[in-house]
């Protein structure tokens, strides 16, 4: 390879290395701030000031959903720790026990008073009658 | 595997309430593709005509 082109290759590699290390440093320092939500364990480990709006995500503990008129309460768990959520309003169609959920709200007396409840689904896609097909 | 998933045309359009979301995305994608294909065809034709003009 001729020297001019060699120099170009090196300068490209240099710029690439520079931008990669720069971005990695930024991402590394921002790391936890880039998380979209806290898990109940992270919530327990950190001292979150009350009245601060936070997002908490995890699974809806089965058997924990209680509905009373327009109010709904349930427990979010990451199977290590869990936190109670109280919400008034309509939950998304995909909200159900044993499936993912992300709530936005304030923490008061170990209970989250949610303003928003979002459903988080996983990457699995399959037809509803898949178990039946397996039995046959 | 190749069974029609719906019982009627109406059901296929309605999709248990999700039809609006699904079909609007279908329209978005088809219009975008169509627009780009037509757009580039016209652009190429225009510049070809211009190059063909005797100077």
């Amino acid at each position, binding site marked *: 390879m001729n020297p001019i082109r060699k120099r170009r290759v090196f300068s490209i590699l240099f710029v690439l290395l520079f931008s990669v290390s720069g971005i990695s440093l930024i991402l590394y320092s921002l790391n936890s701030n880039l998380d979209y939500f806290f898990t109940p364990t992270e919530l327990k480990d950190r001292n979150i000031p009350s009245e601060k709006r936070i997002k908490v995500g995890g699974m809806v503990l089965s058997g924990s959903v209680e509905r009373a008129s327009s109010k709904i309460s349930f427990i979010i768990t990451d199977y290590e720790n869990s936190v109670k959520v109280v919400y008034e309003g309509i939950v998304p169609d995909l909200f159900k026990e044993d499936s993912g959920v992300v709530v936005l709200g304030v923490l008061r007396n170990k209970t989250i008073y949610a303003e928003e409840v979002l459903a988080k689904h996983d990457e699995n896609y399959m037809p509803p009658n898949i178990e039946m097909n397996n039995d046959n | 595997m190749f069974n029609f998933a719906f019982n009627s045309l109406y059901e296929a359009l309605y*999709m248990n309430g*999700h039809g609006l979301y699904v079909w609007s*995305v279908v329209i978005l994608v088809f219009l975008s593709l169509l627009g780009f294909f037509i757009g580039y065809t016209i652009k*190429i034709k225009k*510049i070809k005509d211009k190059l063909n003009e005797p100077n």
Partner: protein
Amino acid sequence: MIKKFIHQFASPKTYLYQVDRFYSYIFLFSIITYIISITWGLLYTPEDFVQGNSYRIIYLHVPASFLSQSLYIAMAISSVTYLIWRVKLAAYLVIAIAPIGAMTTFIALISGSIWGIPTWGTWWQWDARITSTLILFIMYLGLISLHNSFSNHEKADKLLSWLVIVGAINIPIIKKSVDWWSTLHQSASITLTDKPSIDPVMLYPLIGSITGFFGLVICLVLLSSKYQIFIREKNKSWVKDYV
């Protein structure tokens, strides 16, 4: 040797004649594949056990997202080729791909938003995947407007290529965002290493729709690069012979 080969193969003239030769075959193959796969996915696959019918948006959203990243990678490869070997065709390709990349990213964002309404219960959240895809969209728009603002094409080509290479860092970030951070967006259903977590009856039309969309987008890139060649080489004698 390499240089001679690249310059011969990548001469805009040879490229243009090859495009004309293969364009209609690629177009025909991809439009048939795409329409069959979309019809199959939208009407002939069973609904999803969790999401019901709204999951069918996957057949439009995933191909667009996949292409939005692939096109950027193609731009980055062209940029490197241009910067090292000064192949003009590569520079034309960079600016030819940008608007199409912007279009696919736009489709990915909008279809994702629409999909989010019935499933997540929101149309927009600032999670890592969605935000990094928005950044990709802004980058495409920025590259296009930057190129338009230059009157000196060669200067624009060089600056654009450098910026494309620097911005390429966003691609692995988009790809890995769902693994590195907690996001509302679920992780990938199809990966190279693991068994897909999507049932075969839904997977086959998805692969078909990705293939078809890929082909259609390649056709758009061919048209767009043809246009760029005309714009940039309009004073060359072979172009006058061609048209």
